[in-house]
């Protein structure tokens, strides 16, 4: 989350300018709008992570790395290659999807299938393996793209006057895209056949096997959805805040803080938690100091872990 400090500082600067220039209500509105946008992006980043855990039991610590790949490839193809912001975004999402598959087939699946690793320690090995893979991604991206922060061209340029606050169109669009994606996911899970299977897998994998569904197919579906979500989140992040290869670890940390807070495996929980964290951070950045941004989330997390370790809506 320190990686987003720059954005926080910008937001803080805007905030201070606003306080100097305008009255209190405008500041409150600014916090409301910026907080909403930031939370939506956090939410998108987190639900992929929690879906992965809920359905297949995997805590993917290379999450930030996958978002990073999507962001950097998206930026590269949009700017340097000339594909434009939409073309770049599409390629970025595709890159995220591929990275997700590589994570599954090269790191996670071999560990899950290994007979040398006792079942009880499988979780630890997956955590360590994905952590290592995440580092490899970070170093690899640093090598390819250097660690200078890059920003993708806004998908829609210009600003709009929202409730009296000058807000970039980009910010509005990103929020809209995030919520569309979340809405689509919700439709998928609750209305489609494959979605019901995913839901059932997160409740009782053995039950699904008894009904003739191959779990290996379900896992493939989950990694596909995960890759698309993480890829989209990465691309939007590049457009909103910008990214650099230094951010990878912080992105993962931020995602799982939200997921733990909301409850491992609960998608609605993650969304609520994303808004709690997003607003806590935005309020801190505007009213206290941008450098104190990451603190409230961590404090809330510690409190929750001690008082209600399963999170707000957690099940497992």
């Amino acid at each position: 989350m320190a990686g987003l400090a720059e954005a926080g500082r910008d937001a803080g600067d805007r905030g201070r300018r606003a306080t100097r220039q305008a009255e209190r209500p405008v500041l409150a509105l600014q916090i409301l709008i910026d907080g909403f946008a930031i939370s939506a992006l956090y939410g998108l980043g987190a639900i992929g992570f929690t879906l992965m855990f809920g359905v297949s039991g995997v805590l993917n610590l290379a999450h930030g790395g996958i978002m990073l790949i999507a962001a950097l490839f998206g930026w590269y193809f949009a700017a340097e290659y000339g594909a434009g912001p939409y073309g770049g975004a599409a390629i970025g999402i595709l890159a995220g999807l591929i990275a997700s598959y590589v994570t599954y087939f090269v790191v996670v699946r071999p560990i899950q299938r290994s007979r040398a690793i006792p079942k009880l320690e499988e979780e630890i090995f997956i955590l360590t393996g994905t952590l290592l893979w995440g580092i490899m991604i970070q170093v690899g991206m640093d090598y390819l793209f250097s660690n200078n922060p890059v920003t993708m061209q806004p998908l829609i340029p210009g600003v709009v006057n929202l409730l009296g606050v000058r807000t970039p169109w980009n910010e509005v669009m990103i929020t809209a895209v995030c919520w569309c994606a979340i809405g689509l996911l919700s439709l998928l899970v609750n209305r489609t056949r494959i979605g019901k299977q995913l839901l059932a897998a997160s409740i009782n994998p053995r039950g699904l096997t008894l009904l003739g569904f191959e779990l290996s197919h379900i896992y493939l579906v989950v990694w596909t959805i995960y890759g698309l979500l993480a890829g989209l989140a990465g691309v939007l992040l590049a457009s909103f805040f910008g990214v650099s290869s230094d951010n990878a670890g912080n992105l993962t940390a931020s995602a799982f803080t939200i997921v733990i807070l909301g409850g491992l495996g609960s998608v609605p929980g993650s969304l609520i938690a994303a808004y709690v964290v997003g607003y806590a951070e935005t309020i801190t950045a505007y009213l206290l100091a941008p450098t104190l941004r990451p603190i409230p989330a961590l404090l809330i997390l510690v409190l929750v872990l001690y008082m209600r370790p399963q999170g707000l809506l957690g099940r497992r």
Partner: protein
Amino acid sequence: MHDEAPLLAVSGLTKRFGGLVAVRDIGFSIRPGEILGLIGPNGSGKSTVMRLVMGIERPNAGSVKLAGTEIAGWPTHRIARNGIGIVFQHSRPLHRQTVLENIKLALLPDSLWRLAAEPHVEQRARDIAERVGLGAVIGRRPPTLPFADLRRLEMAKALARDPRVVLVDEPFAGLTLAEVATFSELIDGFRRDGRAVLLVDHNVKSVAALVDRVLAMYLGERIAEGTAEQVMRDETVRRVYLGGRIEAHPRKELDVRGGEALLEVRGIDVLYGKAQALQQVSIHVHAGEFVSVVGLNGAGKTTLFNAISGLVPFAGDIRLGGASLRGRTPARIARGGIVQCPETRELFAELSVRENLDLGGQHLASEAARRTQLDWLFDLFPILNERQRQKAGTLSGGEQQMLAIARALMMQPTLLILDEPTLGLAPVILEQLSKALTRLRETTPITVLLGEQNVTFALPHADRVYVLEHARIVWEGAPGRFAAEMGAGYL
């Protein structure tokens, strides 16, 4: 011995798990040098009672007194230090340590500061190993030991604690007859030492020779108490185990002579770790037949069904319609027509009744086919129609069982395997299930393989009966002959 005060005195013991009352108002006492048998089928609460005494679970109500001191609510390690030892049903050794080190562990005090064990500990560990018969393997590690030796190790650890009260959970499961005799001797040794022993098992017959008294449990409550013979003859006990008087109903004979068997299981062996769960088991089922496999808990019914469904590895041959099932994934076997409704039901508790059923029907060709199948099932089990939108986890036990069977039937199976459908259900529900099964038999060409402990439920529907005991098929025949040949000796 009758004048001695009881060493372990339990009264009013009650434990609830959410809405389920696992143990209700259980009381008993055991004197030094006495062995009390706690008997009951799966789900009767006997294991919960044991865990309550040991402090692994906290009772909601009641008292547990050890030599007059109230210990209910104490943490497990404190209860252990005060003189209660437990031999778990499943062996729990330290896999990376030798047998000697495992026994030495049991002799160590609960101290952070003792870095070296006292000198006599090593010798005592050796003596205990000798007493239980592990002298030869003292330097070996548990993964290399046979099953019976692992059970011996559990006994050794219990002995090492030198407890005043010993809790033993299903001591004979997985042992050969010869080993059962040795272990009975060891447990008898506890009695001679003057310890009080609580022996938990599902079968009165197997512990009759060892125990002084028996307390029988069902659905968390006490249903009979007395000597082993008294309990075995008790009407309520017989009804619970056998379901009442064994009657054979005359029914239409199924002509299967000369027909190829639909399901052919030939000489299969299954090992769970070291324990032989199935030994050279062979059964066959013809198309349209209704075959019952009866046997008590631990006999191997579930293992047999899991082998057929591809859920456990086995040695031997299993064929459906002539084609070998070896190498197929469980999901594929289910799609191929063999659908199992396991003992644990495996429902999706957080999804609704309708969603559970829909998942079962996802392989059907069209929406229309699904609708037809659903309507037929709602006719068979009207209560499910009423409770369509209710979450499966909130249904009663009987309703959950019906949902599980209906869900399996949504897949239009060729062979339906039902594992202990009557477990823990009230008699009025059994009536409904029985009627549903009869309708199923009469109106569809379905083949059914039913595994049951409740013989009275299983026999009326069966064309043929297999009896599974201690991992082997010991009897096969028509239900009519069952009462005459097996009935008396079954319990």
